[in-house]
């Protein structure tokens, strides 16, 4: 079980009964608190299982030490601080077939954060795209 603060059962979620209620109803928790985390939900499929196991938890694991991945039956639940990025050219190499960023989107079930594509890269970020940071178009080759 992950001990990361980004884990599915971290913080208040580890508490039960009265202990949970005390924190849940505490005065400081009656307003929202700004969070720099992002959440990604990937529908389980042949390709997504490979992306999760071979890339995000494999070759690229060291790139994002805040990333937590949890198996929630039909889907993978991912949470990280800052951003999660998937380069679909790497996925193509792994799968041995052309796999575009739009093929990736076929099984991306939910996002909490600002998600966007640029070229063959999918990104979900805590940055405020379009407000703090401009959304870019593909540059001319």
């Amino acid at each position, binding site marked *: 079980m992950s001990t990361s603060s980004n884990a599915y059962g971290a913080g208040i979620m580890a508490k039960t009964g009265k202990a949970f209620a005390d924190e849940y109803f505490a005065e400081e928790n009656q307003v929202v608190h700004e969070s720099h985390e992002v959440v990604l939900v990937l529908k389980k499929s042949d390709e997504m299982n490979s992306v999760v196991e071979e890339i995000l938890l494999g070759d690229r694991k060291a790139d994002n030490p805040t990333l937590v991945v949890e198996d929630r039956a039909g889907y993978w639940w991912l949470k990280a601080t800052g951003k999660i990025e998937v380069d679909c050219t790497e996925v193509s190499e792994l799968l041995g077939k052309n796999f575009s960023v739009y093929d990736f989107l076929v*099984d991306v079930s939910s996002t909490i954060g600002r998600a966007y594509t640029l070229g063959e890269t999918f990104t979900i970020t805590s940055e405020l795209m379009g407000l703090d940071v401009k959304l870019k178009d*593909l540059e001319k080759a």
Partner: protein
Amino acid sequence: MAISTATKAATDALAVNRAPVSVGAQEVHRWLQSFTWDFDKNRTKYSTKYKMANDTKEQFKLIAKEYARMESVKDERQFGSLQDVLTRVDAANRVHPKWNESMKVISNFLEVGEYNAIAATGMLWDSATAPEQKNGYLGQVMDEIRHTNQCGYINYYFAKQGQDAAGHNDARRTRAIGPLWKGMKRVFSDGFISGDAVECSINLQLVGEACFTNPLIVAVTEWASANGDEMTPTVFLSIETDELRHMANGYQTVVSIANDEAASKYLNTDLNNAFWTQQKYFTPVLGMMFEYGSHFKVEPWVKTWNRWVYEDWGGIWIGRLGKYGVESPASLRDAKKDAYWAHHDLFLLAYALWPTGFFRLTLPTAEEAEWYEANYPGWYDMYGKVYEEWRARGCEDPSSGFLPLQWFAENNHPIYIDRVSQVPFCPSYSKGASTLRVLEYNGKKHSFSDQWGERMWLSEPERYECQNIFEQYEGRELSEVIAEGHGLRSDGKTLISQPHTNKDGKLWTLDDIKKIGCVFADPLKAL
């Protein structure tokens, strides 16, 4: 063989300047930027008080070809799974009977939401001026049509392949009498398609989709799997693969008005109204479906709500927008109280009103009662002992002559309907955030369960004129109303809804209800 001069010239030219074998979708997207469209003469059904900027982007750079290819792959995977392996393993009959009933509500109600979202996003297409923003909304219109079909299909699949089809196949015919229908229409229909276009976007996209689709369409799949249902994850997780673009559309709607002066005046009120409107219904109904409509529990509903609604939607969406003046919704404190208690309040009333529904309900077992008390300290004293009394009086048995609705009358606990949300509440027997408020307007009394709905009503009372079941059927005997409101199975005498899911238990008929002599009364008349 000799080649022609022209062919040779072409071959030589290609040897120097190779023609591209394909053009990437994002290159096409970039090329489309060179077109300019003028949408100054937009025709909108409902205008907006905000000015939407005309340089807003669509975050996924989607073009029609890739959109169509993506959606066709999604459908192939979904229908392939349903029609092949899930049918072969008889998946629909492996679902726990309690969860089978929950899916009657969830899939039928979601279908209505998806259907109304078609109109909502069409209206937003009319309102926006930025070509990319329009493109995002247009994709969403097509998504919502797909989702409406998906929800219809999963009901059809459950009805055809599974157990107890009544309620999966014809739920909508009970819409006049079912006490959950009108609230659902308020949240899933009126909130999405009536009024200021940007306000509708906040209801649909920023709150409905970015916040509540995560429990409704994502977390629900975990409950489904735990209760033997593998059809729902197949369909619902596929639906949700479109929702991330809808969430982005909602965010870009806010981006498009962020620098408009009107945003500083109205955005926080519109956001709070939308949050309260959506949570007022989704919070108790989803909690009730998950916890009381399942045999195997995944986690307490309040934890699901705390994760997806409070921590993640609240912190990652709303909290991050704080520097642009977006505030924590003023109604959050009451919403949190509801997330802890309101689904328990609602189940008490839903069970009492069971003959008017289109799905079967089950009282908590002793084992479940322990689970509730462990996770919601104080549950037994408020709810558990009432269920024990109802069970002892034979509430499941048609020969008992007892409907739990009688218990509320015997104990002087009148049930009201909140005029704005249309959600029933019992102010004298409730632990959620509901308290009774009554106002009179044009010679008619109106009941409200909270200050947030009351405020919305005061600003436009003519918007909330829908009759509730107590007003509509006052003085009428219950069995007459059930027959008139199509609450019967195909034999013409057995009720669709039942107060148990025991396959060997006796089913209630119209005659059993008639013997009790229950008559509708409007509680507002007694005030």
